[in-house]
């Protein structure tokens, strides 16, 4: 998948998970803690939303490693 399309989808998931937060145009460097609501619970909801958006399922190991947009980009092939 092209990086551009990936980022668009990730952006969509971010907006859906953190509807009240202002999200910069450049999201590549965002990580847990970057947004007010992106705490551990927020992280959980974000990853679940990413799974929905990309119609995939991370295994337990991968899921627990994801903490940033970079991690997500790396794990989505």
């Amino acid at each position, binding site marked *: 998948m092209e990086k551009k399309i990936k980022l668009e989808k990730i952006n969509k998931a971010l907006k859906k998970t953190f509807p009240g937060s202002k999200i910069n145009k450049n999201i590549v460097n965002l990580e847990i803690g970057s947004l007010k609501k992106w705490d551990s*619970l927020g992280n*959980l*909801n974000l990853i*679940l939303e990413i*799974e*929905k958006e990309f119609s995939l399922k991370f*295994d*337990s190991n991968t*899921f627990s490693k994801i903490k940033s947009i970079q991690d997500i980009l790396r794990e989505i092939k």
Partner: protein
Amino acid sequence: MNIEIKSTSYLIPNNSSWGSLYKDNKLKFAEYNNIINNSKFNQKNECEIFVLFLKDIINYYKVLKNINKSEIKKIKLIINFIEKKISTNKKKSFIISISSYYYFNHLNSSKNKSLEKETEIFFYKELYKLSKIYPNLYILNIDDLFSFHGHKSCFDERNYSLFRCRLSVFGLKLLSDKLSEIILRINITNKKVLLLDCDNTLWGGVVGEDEIEKIKLGQDGIGLAFLEFQKAIKKLQESGIILGLVSKNNHNDVINVLDKHKSMILKKKDISIFKINWNQKSQNIRQISKDLFLGLDSFVFWDDNPIERNKIRNEIKEVEVIEPEKDISYWSKQLLEYNGFSKFEITKEDYAKTKQYKSRSVFIEKRESSKSEISYLKKIKIKAELKNIGADSIDRASQLSQKTNQFNFSTKRYKIADIKNLKKNHLCFLAKLSDIYGNHGLVSLIILKKYKKILYVDSFLMSCRIMGRYLENWLLDQIKRIAIKNNIKNILFEFIPNKKNKELITNFIKFNELAKIKKKDLIKIEKELNLNNNKYAEYYIINTKQKIKNLEIYGKKN
């Protein structure tokens, strides 16, 4: 609604899967796996939801032999806790949802019940016992809910090991959707009437054009699909849903099929309303609503013809129009899964509804078609009688007071205990009615308070299903007689108007020429008069000398 959700599992609060419940409610998730603790917030909650996973409760990994009793004990503890909560919070609703699913090993369970199965059966048995006692308890079987979509897509072992959530995001969504449906039904009553087309809806083909034997019903293929659909309709009718035929046919053609076709599940006696004519369906439906005192929003319309469906959608927005599946084979399932008719309980009155509304429609039809209303009413042998409220009828008195909306002057709602108290110092009556259409039973409640110069009508109400017989006038005459007997010259009516009672009561006031009077003028007549301070209340008075109309129906002269 303020809702608190308690679960043995982590349920990911704030996840978008909960959207359907968040939409109309305020949700609070208690700390998970802490269900037996009382939370600080529970005062404000109107609803408490328990989401219980048996695998979180029982130690399924232990050897079956030794632990049965101790595991059952855990369930008992939860049941006791739930009962204690429910019995002390009768205004609050409780929804208990349970899942016993974890894994299936069909070889192991091919000879014996598994521990999971056994505890599940015990749990449900105890819960349903409670739900019989407490009307505010509702039960949801999560495993049944998920079975349609497959347990594999609803449960999620990964989510459990990562964050102790038994469910997948999809499972959470299904749970949220179903819970919000239950909550909606707690707050809004179900639909009451199913209006059906005939040709190509109850059977295949067109009566009148085809011979009666040629319509498709009962035979294998499409005929069997129509038969199954009729079975589903019959099931609803048995649970108290009123059936009506609204179809463009010759009346006799349809009656002929109902009477003579051997495969028909629906018989003439099952149908309360017949509007089989060439009029616009919307006109027929409005007429039904008016005749039977049923709101248009209690109607559901099922017709195979998309043009008729669209007409109703456009002309009567309140009526729910079903979009039937393209393949008739799925209609029966679609109707039974439709939520609009679902209700938590089937009461004694539900069983009598078909007959009740049928007799009302026949009464209306005959009255309309006779030349003179009064001479028709004289012919149907109406008999009315006032009864004192006794131990055998106090239930009915309270029920009438609680449920009657349209012909009800003051809409004061009295419980059994209230009526017992009122009876001590005031005059309380029920009225009984019968005619050739049957014995209608106790249909009216009147509560009168005596003062020196005024007979104050505290409650005056009448069931709508017998409207059109001028029973209200006979009752007014009875009240007048009681006043005369007690040497009181004025009868005072208190009318508290609302959306539902306004039309019928206003008509009654006009028809019987009741005179409006101001509260301050009332006190001039009767100093001791004790009226509630309802700012919407209107007062009307009549003198005992006034003549009351239409009493000849009841074989009386003025």
